[in-house]
């Protein structure tokens, strides 16, 4: 092997490793969902002031929770699988909130199916999971524009699942003062601790 | 024919240096790992209390992985050395494979001694990922990656061999003698048995390595992403396909030494015949399909696979053994053979292979296996094949090459000590097994301890015998002129 080939090999190997390192955020993220988490943890993302309609039919904005940290999960009420599980998880988290009234975390579930998820459906979803209005808001985007903004700004992926529903990101999003600060797995056992720590 | 042979054969000067390296490393590592084996038996006999269970399982993994790898390398050296008489092999590839193997050995030994990996050489999924604090994921990864590198090393040599065989004989099938066997071509009685055996080993080992390439990487993926959990039975099938084929092929490589060296003693050529070719074809297929006998206890295994494993276990050893043992005896009979270290070792190897069939067949019965599989009967069975079959063949090969078999009184005595020790060692295992002494137990009941101590003692004899044969060879090897013709 000539020295030139050897140098070329080392260079090529280095470049290829750097490429893979960059794409996988240091060999830690191999899927889009984990990559999104790593990216947000590295640098928070600004989100606009989404206009939502809650289960009472009232219109609200993210900025209405000015001094609170929002834990945002995306769901749709006719979802038979993961949204039910996320609902149960919120139910558990709500208990933590009640036990620690001083924390400033607020739970927010936003529907990605605004056409079908009327305020009645949203209220029914929260009832199903024994949700309390005081600490858990279930809402839908006010219009298609907001839905689009939400998806674009958070990097959420939503695709039809061929059963009339959606396959969508299952992660939970920590938002405070118009900044997406962190993305967590809903199964993460550390969520309670993060809540008592104030998000 | 003569000119053709000269055209194809590897030049003499290229053949010997790398083979010497293989042999020297092989003999030293064999002896070192025998010592590890003795320590394990002594620990089971409770006469070495300093070896606790944690260390015991590390030693067991080291002894297993090391012996399998070394047997593979030594048998490969036998195969390569004799095949290179007929086809033109590339010594640089052979050397590269040795270097790669040493890298693999460093990884494996490091994983065991530094990383404390102790899941056995079969790295049986999902054990490597469930160490209960004994070893880290990194150690398991290193061990498995080491096996992968070892597989690549062997693959390189087999590809080179395959290529050279195709160049001379047209195809692997022709080297195996299929056209002659099925009457497409007239029987060429000068077709070398070495080439037939090499073709068989090549086919099964490349298939085994291919399975290994999949299962080893899946094991690594599982170690890194525990949620990615492959089907355990399928993994086990692939692991045993890979592992069984690899270790089984060592005896079919090592037996080439018998085919090549015994005729020189007997001064009669070893000629191929139709039954000989048929036996080797049969064993090619059987070695690929016999591995389910490792899974007879897995109730979820489809019944037909268990039945196939049992039937093939009965039959797989027999065809080649019969033609080889019979051919060997025919060769020796009234030939006025000279009994020295090399010839006695080679015949001892044949004996070990032949008698080793008996414990193997017993263990291959489903009803027996259900009771005996986790007893020391199984180590008894495979030590019979490997310690009284493969090792003497390799030692005989080394003795013939290194000292032309003339090792004098010490050599003959060494063979005797080795034979007595090896048979005794296997008997302690078999007797233990028949008395339901479990295998892979670090600590033994008091009632079993005498067997462990006897095993350690006979293992010591094996080690002494090996050193008596190997040390003079090792001293002479650097200067030895290796010739066989």
């Amino acid at each position, binding site marked *: *092997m000539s020295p030139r*080939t050897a140098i*070329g*090999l080392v260079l*090529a*190997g280095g*470049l*290829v*490793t750097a*490429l*893979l390192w960059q*794409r*996988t955020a240091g060999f830690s*993220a*191999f*899927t*889009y*969902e*984990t*990559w999104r988490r790593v990216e947000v943890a590295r640098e928070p993302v600004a989100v606009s002031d989404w206009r939502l309609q809650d289960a009472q039919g009232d219109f609200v904005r993210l900025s209405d929770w000015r001094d609170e940290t929002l834990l945002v999960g995306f769901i749709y009420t006719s979802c038979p699988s993961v949204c039910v599980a996320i609902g149960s998880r919120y139910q558990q988290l709500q208990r933590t909130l009640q036990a620690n009234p001083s924390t400033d975390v607020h739970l927010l579930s936003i529907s990605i199916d605004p056409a079908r998820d009327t305020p009645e459906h949203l209220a029914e979803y929260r009832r199903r999971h024994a949700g309390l209005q005081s600490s858990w808001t279930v809402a839908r985007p006010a219009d298609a524009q907001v839905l689009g903004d939400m998806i674009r700004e958070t990097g959420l*992926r939503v*695709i039809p*699942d*061929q059963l009339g529903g959606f*396959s969508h*990101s299952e992660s939970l999003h920590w938002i405070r003062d118009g900044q997406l600060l962190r993305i967590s797995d809903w199964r993460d056992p550390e969520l309670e601790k993060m809540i008592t720590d104030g998000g | 024919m003569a000119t053709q042979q000269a055209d194809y054969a590897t030049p003499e000067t290229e053949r010997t240096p790398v083979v010497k390296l293989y042999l020297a490393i092989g003999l030293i590592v064999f002896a070192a790992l025998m010592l590890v084996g003795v320590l394990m038996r002594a620990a089971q006999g409770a006469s070495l209390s300093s070896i606790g269970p944690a260390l015991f399982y590390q030693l067991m993994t080291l002894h297993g992985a090391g012996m399998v790898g070394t047997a593979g390398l030594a048998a490969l050296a036998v195969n390569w050395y004799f095949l290179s008489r007929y086809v033109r092999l590339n010594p640089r*590839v052979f050397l590269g494979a040795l270097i790669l193997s040493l890298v693999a050995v460093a990884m494996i030994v490091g994983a065991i001694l530094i990383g404390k990996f102790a899941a056995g050489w079969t790295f049986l999924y999902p054990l490597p990922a469930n160490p209960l604090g004994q070893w880290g994921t990194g150690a398991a990864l290193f061990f498995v990656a080491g096996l992968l590198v070892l597989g*690549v090393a062997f*693959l*390189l040599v087999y*590809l*080179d061999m*395959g*290529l050279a065989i*195709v*160049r*001379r*004989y*047209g*195809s*692997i*099938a*022709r080297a195996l003698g299929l056209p002659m066997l099925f009457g497409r071509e007239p029987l060429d009685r000068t077709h070398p048995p070495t080439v037939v055996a090499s073709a068989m080993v090549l*086919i099964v080992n*490349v*298939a085994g*390595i*291919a399975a290994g*390439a*999949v299962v080893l*990487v*899946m094991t690594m*993926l599982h170690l890194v992403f525990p*949620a*990615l*959990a*492959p*089907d355990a039975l399928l993994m086990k099938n692939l692991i045993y396909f890979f592992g069984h084929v690899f270790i089984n092929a060592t005896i079919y490589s090592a037996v080439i030494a018998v085919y090549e060296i015994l005729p020189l003693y007997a001064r009669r050529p070893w000629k191929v015949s139709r039954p000989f070719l048929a036996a080797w074809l049969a064993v090619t297929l059987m070695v690929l399909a016999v591995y389910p006998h490792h899974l007879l206890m897995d109730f979820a295994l489809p019944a037909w696979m268990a039945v196939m494993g049992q039937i093939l276990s009965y039959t797989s050893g027999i065809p080649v053994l019969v033609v080889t043992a019979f051919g060997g005896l025919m060769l020796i009979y009234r030939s006025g053979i000279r009994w020295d270290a090399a010839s006695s070792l080679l015949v001892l190897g044949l004996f070990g292979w032949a008698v080793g069939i008996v414990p193997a067949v017993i263990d291959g019965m489903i009803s027996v296996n259900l009771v005996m599989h986790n007893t020391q009967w199984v180590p008894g069975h495979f030590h019979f094949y490997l310690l009284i079959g493969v090792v003497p063949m390799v030692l005989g090969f080394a003795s013939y090459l290194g000292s032309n078999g003339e090792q004098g009184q010490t050599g003959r005595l060494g063979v005797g000590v080795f034979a007595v020790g090896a048979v005794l060692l296997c008997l302690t295992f078999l007797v233990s097994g028949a008395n339901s002494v479990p295998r892979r137990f670090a600590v033994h009941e008091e009632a079993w301890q005498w067997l462990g101590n006897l095993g350690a003692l006979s293992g010591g004899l094996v080690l002494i015998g090996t050193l008596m044969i190997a040390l003079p060879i090792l001293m002479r090897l650097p200067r030895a002129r290796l010739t066989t013709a």
Partner: protein
Amino acid sequence: MAAEPWRGAARTILLAVSVAGLFPPVAALFEASMRSHLLVQMPLLAFCGGYWVYRSPPLKRWLERVDPSGYIALVVGSGWFIYWMLPISLDLATFDPGIRLLKIVTVPVCVGAALTWSWLRLGPIGRGVMLLEGWAILGRLGWVYLISPVQLCSNYLIDDQQRTGSLLLGAALISAVGIALWAVFGPFRKPHRTEQE
């Protein structure tokens, strides 16, 4: 080169298909399912690169100068091959136009052409290792897709992923039989024919 018009036509069609993968309607067609994306478009793009190396003497001359051993091409090709095996890359290529462009450029050039060049340069032993490794990748990737408990690509449903896995395993099985027959009974030419060394 232009002596055979069909060859020119074939090249044009291949190029057209690759470039068309950039435009939304065709892109949507290729990227509609994981199967068509991974098992149709990717191999097609890689084939374009390989074909280019085969048919272009100037490119061959350049490669001959830059990488006579083919080792560098092998490293580059393997690296990009791994890159495009990552679920995240496949995912991003479906909705990030920049990554889609990267795919249309690098899969033919850095995977197809590079691996073809290294295949041409490597000796038979190197080719054997490449062949076995390529086959093993089919098996491993297919197996992973089949058993992964999570949806690896946000844009492809898990049943699509599993079907892709089955197809990969099927391809592995068929090619195993093919390669085995060829290796044992092949290479199907007369013995003693002069070999090009």
